[in-house]
């Protein structure tokens, strides 16, 4: 999986990802959207609450606030003590966690299906009644600072990717890391969190997704009981801040302790939410193009760059049509031994030039379609994944119904359309290139035979 390092960084949705059926929907009076996908294969349920707020909604100086708030959602409400939420879920045999992205913040519980009521009660409680106590905020802020050190500061490719985004986007809030800049994190105040919570955590800014061994009518009844009494909020949409047209190629270098260089390149591209009227096919063509390059071991990058020409130790391409703002079409790679970044970059550019000048082969598209269709079957083995697609599509504003039609729409993409998007969007004036330039990491070991004899710490 080393060739998929982008997926680790980006949470890209694999092509074979999207799909659903027999979903039932209801909207409560306070605006909460409830989606139910029954699946009786096992007596379990996944409950997910999706809020339409993420780092893409954040201001300068307060980046990462959505993620910090996500942490605080486990730290007590007006009626529940800090940690009680997790203890109650644990006592009921549940798994729980949450995740924050540019476009959303989501919370989930996986439980035996007879515990649905408990999950609803807890999620409804923390939707409007979070405590945000200063004494809980202080240690949790330290946790988030440690999290940033672990994920970003001490990980050379994450660090490079962070700086790459900041270079690629000049105005779009996608220039900020989801976890926030270190200096912003240090300066959060509890009041910042309180107003962020009040502003975004409301039934009319959320989608509740339930998948598993449930009856939709019963889910709607329980949702009405627990979430129905919650007050809605006036949601002020944030200002658009669209990225202005890029006026020439940009390059940055990131020097960090590392062993191997890494190259990442990104072209500005539209997504479904920002596609021009009449050009809604373009994001699908870009998804198909990413799969032609990197949709498996039979795709071009593995076959040509890794195996045949042996320029890359690993190489990847990534694009997702499902974000709220315009995105990048990404290429990345690590040079093979004896090759360098310049050779790798030239080879990646050559690959792009080829899709601009030559139509892709029908066999390549056929193989991708076959993988997509198989993926639709495989995804039914994961409740969580199915629920996640519904929640994500609904929250980014595309509508959960897209899960049902995605494969059909992407399968309709033609070689000519792929060539057209390559010509229109994969242009060097809209390209940003970042190179990780490895700095020494010499490490030394000092074994000693007993504990506690090692002196002070610098």
């Amino acid at each position: 999986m080393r060739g998929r390092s982008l997926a680790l960084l980006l949470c890209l949705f694999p092509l074979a990802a999207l799909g659903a059926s027999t979903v039932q929907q209801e909207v409560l009076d306070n605006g909460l959207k409830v989606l139910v996908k029954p699946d009786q294969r096992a007596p379990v349920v996944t409950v997910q609450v999706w809020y339409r707020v993420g780092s893409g909604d954040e201001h300068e100086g307060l980046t990462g606030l959505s993620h910090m708030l996500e942490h605080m959602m486990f730290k007590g409400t007006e009626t529940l003590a800090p940690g009680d939420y997790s203890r109650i879920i644990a006592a009921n045999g549940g798994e729980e966690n949450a995740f924050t992205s540019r476009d959303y913040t989501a919370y989930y519980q996986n439980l035996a299906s007879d515990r649905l009521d408990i999950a609803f009660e807890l999620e409804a409680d923390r939707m409007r009644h979070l405590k945000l106590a200063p004494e809980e905020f202080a240690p949790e802020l330290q946790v988030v600072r440690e999290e940033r050190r672990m994920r970003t500061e001490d990980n050379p490719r994450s660090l490079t990717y962070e700086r790459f985004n900041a270079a690629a986007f000049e105005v779009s809030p996608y220039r900020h890391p989801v976890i926030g800049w270190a200096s912003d994190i240090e300066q959060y105040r509890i009041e910042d969190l309180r107003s962020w919570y009040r502003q975004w955590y409301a039934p009319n800014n959320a989608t509740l997704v339930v998948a598993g061994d449930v009856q939709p009518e019963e889910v709607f009844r329980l949702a009405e009981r627990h979430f129905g009494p919650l007050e809605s909020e006036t949601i002020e949409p944030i200002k658009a801040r669209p990225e202005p047209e890029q006026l020439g190629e940009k390059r940055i270098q990131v020097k960090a302790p590392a062993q191997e260089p890494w190259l990442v390149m990104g072209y500005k591209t539209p997504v479904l939410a920002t596609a021009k009227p009449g050009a809604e096919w373009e994001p699908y063509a870009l998804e198909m193009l990413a799969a032609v390059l990197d949709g498996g071991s039979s795709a071009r990058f593995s076959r040509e760059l890794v195996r045949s020409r042996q320029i890359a130790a690993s190489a990847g391409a990534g694009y997702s049509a499902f974000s709220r703002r315009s995105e990048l079409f990404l290429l990345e790679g690590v040079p093979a031994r004896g090759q360098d970044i310049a050779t790798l970059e030239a080879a990646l550019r050559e690959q792009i030039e080829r899709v601009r000048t030559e139509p892709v082969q029908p066999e390549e598209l056929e193989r991708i379609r076959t993988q997509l269709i198989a993926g639709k079957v495989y995804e039914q083995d994961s409740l969580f994944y199915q629920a996640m697609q519904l929640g994500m599509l609904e929250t980014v504003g595309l509508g959960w119904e897209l899960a049902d039609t995605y494969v059909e729409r992407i399968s309709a993409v033609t070689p000519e359309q792929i060539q057209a998007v390559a010509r229109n969007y994969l242009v060097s004036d809209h390209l940003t290139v970042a190179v990780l330039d490895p700095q020494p990491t010499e490490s030394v070991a000092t074994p000693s035979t007993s504990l506690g004899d090692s002196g002070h710490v610098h």
Partner: protein
Amino acid sequence: MCIDRRALRPWIATGLLLLATSAQALPEIQSWTTSNGARVLFASAPELPMVDVHIAFDAGSARDGAHPGLASLTAALLTQGAGAWNADGIAERLEGVGAELHASADRDMTEVTLRSLTREDALETAVATLAAILARPTFAPEDVERMRRNRLVALRQEQESPREVASRALWRAVFANHPYAEDPQGTPEAIKAIDRETLAAFHERYYRGANAVIAIVGALDRAGAEQLAERILGELPRGARAAELPPAPELTAARQERIAFPSSQTTILAGQPGMRRGDPDYFPLYVGNHILGGSGLVSLLMEEIRAKRGLSYSTYSYFLPLAQPGPFLMSLQTRNDQAEAAQALMLETLRRFIERGPTEEELDAARKNITGGFPLRIDSNADIVRYLAMIGFYGLELDYLARFTARIESVTAEQIRDAFARRVHPERLVTVSVGEMGAHGPEVARQ
């Protein structure tokens, strides 16, 4: 970018403690042996038109001998050429029918997994490809060379991660001369020296019917599964099951290894030999560890280190049960200047837990969590096939899942206290720190 709020599970992905039972309908496991001696475990799952196959050979990195990385490189080369096909041909055949195939090695086993549609043409192509990969890998010199070079790049990238550096150092210190000491990915020196003959010899020795377990879950009946197992493994000579591994010796003294690393945090791992699969103390140790550091946010380690003091984003402990006792391991990572204090707190939390044992309240909460969550552990074909492979490979009882809940329920606080006192020795732990905390004292060059 996705941010998981915290790491609930240890990072090591294989052989985790995935266990538990309830009144839920359990998969009905059938078992038999193929004509060439492979053990089959099968559960029918007719709901979806797909099948999952896991093949486990007793061919983990513990069998690498003088060539650390051999099992893993052998596995990686399977898909690079086999039978009549080169890597392109194999990839096109599999992806052309939407099949997914992976091959890798951990310390105990080489595992090859296939997920395919059961539609006849798809399954036929996938199975023919898989059978060739297992029985007739090519190990073409140019593929061997390419995979070796790319592995060397990957090994260097691993050295960029304080966690990977710490993990390798800990296993080496805990297992010393035992075959579990080296990382399955191998060492640069060994990878450079592995040649085609070494790979072919490893394959010939270990990719054998009697050395294999195959788990099958999917939309097949017994007859279909029998046929499938024969088709996949039938070309392999019977051979013999690999000899049992020796147990790792207990540690005799505490030991701390400090590795200087240019990172803002110090990563701390502490460990010692723990327990094996089927261990008589398995359940008390499993439940006890659940309380100590195995239950995410509600564990004692999380409470002390993260919730109360904000010292680390992730902290946990686990036993990794292997064929022979795998490690008991604890971990955290924190800002360099507070690493000493955090390490002391982690070890103190362990000591206190061993001394006092679990409270009845903690034990009750752990039992409820494990048994209440049992349905989640077997709610997908992907989960069930992993259980079947584990049960088959480690020779656990076929009613392992059926008895699991009752065994958890029957664990007492006294059993946990007793098992921890006998099996976990804080005065003989290996501790590894990677970060600036280690940037002092006499320096020893390290590869």
